[in-house]
């Protein structure tokens, strides 16, 4: 496993294809920020709260954005979001739901739980790559994240 320190983008995604497309799109857009990939909701929470395999993670260091899929093994995306917002260390972190879901109730519930933004993955590859580029520029360059997650 790569070092879990210095991570700028936490990508929570169980589909290997979508992981590959996303990393490829970041590379094409010359977004070189450090990405860490976790494959299910439980691992995402372990990473954020420095538990289990991530017990030694430097918790003064937080990602600038969390890209969160909804349909995930073990713990689903909305539950991950709920736990992020419930903990004082992580409740202010920018979270973007990135999903294939077209369901209005997922959008409503995501916003009700305090997601920062909700993006439906375009099916077309070119559009997916363009979306990742815009999303990366927005959250890594333009948006100012909280320096400390809590305070």
């Amino acid at each position, binding site marked *: 496993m790569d070092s879990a320190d210095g991570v700028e983008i936490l990508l929570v995604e169980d589909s290997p294809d979508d992981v590959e497309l996303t990393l490829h799109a970041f590379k094409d857009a010359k977004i070189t920020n450090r990405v860490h990939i976790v494959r299910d909701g439980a691992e995402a929470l372990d990473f954020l709260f420095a538990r289990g395999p991530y017990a030694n993670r430097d918790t003064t260091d937080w990602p600038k954005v969390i890209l969160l899929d909804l349909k995930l093994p073990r713990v689903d995306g909305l539950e991950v979001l709920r736990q992020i917002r419930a903990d004082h260390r992580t409740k202010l972190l920018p979270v973007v739901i990135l999903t294939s879901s077209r369901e209005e109730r997922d959008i409503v519930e995501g916003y009700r739980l305090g997601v920062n933004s909700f993006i439906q993955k375009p099916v077309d590859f070119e559009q997916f790559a363009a979306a990742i580029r815009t999303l990366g520029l927005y959250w890594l360059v333009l948006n100012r994240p*909280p320096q400390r997650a809590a305070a």
Partner: protein
Amino acid sequence: MSRRPPLSIQMQVDILLVEDDAEDNTLTLFALLKHQLTNKFHVARNGQEALDYVLCTGQYANRNITEQPHLILLDLNLQPMGGLEVLRRIRADPRTRTIPIVMLTASDEENDLLESYRLGVNSYIVKPVDFKQFKEAARLVAEYWLLLNRSPSRAA
């Protein structure tokens, strides 16, 4: 025939721009129009007008509260009611709590930033001082929130 409110009040807008600095307004709107991202926006010149617009009170009492902008661009340094208070009141009302709000500010102060996130802002942006960068930022903001982001189609 029943009397109708002016068109600008009936129309569903994409962006509500809350900004008391006329020059910044001009720049933002110029960037939106130039890139043809939207021509459907409404400008509120102070915090109270923004709240009246969103909550359909005062001069906007005839507006339909289910027709909300896809994005509120909110200046932090408004007088007399500040941007943080506007944000707090929009988030406190179940009918308007999920409208995406981006704080636009000249302030790089950590306290303003943390308080904005605590109150539930979706994003916090420090206005670039350089004219060209400002226009580029306005374009990216509109592209992101109007073309990419999805928000609940109805309030509440």
